[in-house]
C-alpha cells in the first residue's frame, strides 16, 4: 500500500470518527431519543368521586388565584332515581395536544411545546396577552393569570413538582387513584399500559389535536334526549 493511500484512509477514518462524535454530542445537546419524554395523563371517570381534592391541590401547589383555575372537575347529573343516583365527573384541564391550536396561533411563540417532555408551556415574558390562544383552544382551558397578565394553564406541575421528581399535585392528592401520570414513550409506565389495554378516549379527536389527556369514560350512563 503506498503512502498516500494510507494517509488518505487514516484521514478519512479520523474524519468519520470526528463526525460521528460531533453528531453524538449534537444529538445529546438537542433531543436525544434517550432523554425525550412524552408525558400523558389518564383520568378514570369510574374511580373519580368528585371530591375536588385535585382542584384544591392544584390551586395550592401552583398558586392559582381565585376566579381562575387550571383544573376543574365538571359534574353532570344526577342520573337515575332516588336512592340510586349517580354523577359523571369529567376532568377539564390542558390536554397537552401533540398538535396544539394554541401553539399554532400564538404570534410570538409564547405558547410552545417543550420538545423534551411534550408539555405545552407558556413563556410568560413573551406573552403579550392577545387572547388568540384562549380563543383557539377547543378545550377552553386557558385563561389570563390575574397577576402575570399572561396566558396560563396546567403544565402537569412541570415547574412546581416534576422538576423535583414528584408527580403532579392532582395525581398525588387523588384518594381513589383515578389519575395516572406517566411517559407514553416508556412502555413500562402505568399510563402506557392502561392506554394500551383499556378503552380510553380523548376529547374532540376529530379536530386532529391529538390530546394527551386520556379518559376512561364512566360505565354508568344515561341517555338525555
Amino acid at each position, binding site marked *: 500500500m503506498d503512502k498516500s493511500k494510507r494517509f488518505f484512509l487514516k484521514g478519512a477514518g479520523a474524519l468519520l470518527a470526528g463526525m460521528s462524535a460531533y453528531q453524538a454530542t449534537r444529538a445529546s445537546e438537542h433531543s436525544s431519543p434517550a432523554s425525550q419524554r412524552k408525558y400523558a395523563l389518564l383520568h378514570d371517570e369510574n*374511580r373519580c368521586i368528585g371530591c375536588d381534592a385535585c382542584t384544591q391541590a392544584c390551586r395550592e401547589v401552583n398558586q392559582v388565584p381565585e376566579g381562575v383555575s387550571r383544573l376543574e372537575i365538571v359534574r353532570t347529573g344526577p342520573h337515575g332515581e332516588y336512592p340510586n343516583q349517580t354523577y359523571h365527573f369529567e376532568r377539564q384541564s390542558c390536554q397537552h395536544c401533540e398538535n396544539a391550536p394554541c401553539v399554532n396561533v400564538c404570534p410570538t411563540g409564547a405558547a410552545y411545546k417543550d420538545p423534551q417532555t411534550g408539555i405545552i408551556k407558556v413563556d410568560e415574558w413573551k406573552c403579550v396577552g392577545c387572547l388568540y390562544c384562549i380563543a383557539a383552544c377547543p378545550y377552553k382551558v386557558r385563561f389570563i393569570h390575574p397577576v402575570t397578565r399572561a396566558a396560563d394553564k396546567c403544565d402537569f406541575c412541570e415547574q412546581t413538582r416534576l422538576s423535583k421528581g414528584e408527580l403532579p399535585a392532582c395525581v398525588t392528592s387523588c384518594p381513589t387513584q383515578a389519575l395516572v401520570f406517566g411517559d407514553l414513550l416508556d412502555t413500562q409506565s402505568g399510563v402506557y399500559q392502561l392506554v394500551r389495554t383499556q378503552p380510553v378516549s380523548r376529547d374532540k379527536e376529530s379536530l386532529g389535536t391529538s390530546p394527551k389527556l386520556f379518559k376512561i369514560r364512566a360505565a354508568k350512563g344515561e341517555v338525555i334526549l
Partner: protein
Amino acid sequence: MSRLPLLVALVSLLSWLPVQAKESSSAAMSEIHKSPCMKCHKRNGTMQGIHGNSDLTVSCVDCHGEKQGHPRKASDLVVFNAATPAETQVKPCIECHDPQALGTLEWTHNVHSNKVSCSQCHQLHPTEDPMVSVTQADRAAMCQQCHQSKQD
C-alpha cells in the same frame, strides 16, 4: 360550596321561627327536655341543636322510635351509630327532609342517599351541626375517610 347551602337550608327551614336567635340558651328549657326520656338520658340526651327548638315540636321518639321494652327488654329504638343499618337511620330524617331538596342543595346527598347514614356526617344534638362550618379542604378530606383506594 358545602357550607352555604346547608346554612341556607337550615335558616330557610327556621325562618318562620321568632326565637331562633336565642335557641341555644333556651335549649335546656325547651319542650323536648320535658320528655320522660330525659329522666335517664340527662347527660347524653340533651338536645342543643336546632331540632330541639320547641316550635318544631320534635320529640325524642320522632327520630329514635317508640320506647317499647326499653331499657329492660328488646326494642326497635334507632341508635344513630355505625351498628345500625344506614337505611334505618335515614328513614326518620327523610320524613321531614325531602331527598330531592337535599340533593339540589348538596349533590353528595344524592349519591349517598340511603346507603350512608346522615349521622356519618351530621350531628343534631350539639349546638351546631359540624357540617355547617365545614371548609372546602375539610370536605375533600371527609370524602377520603371512606373513599380511599390503595395503588394496586
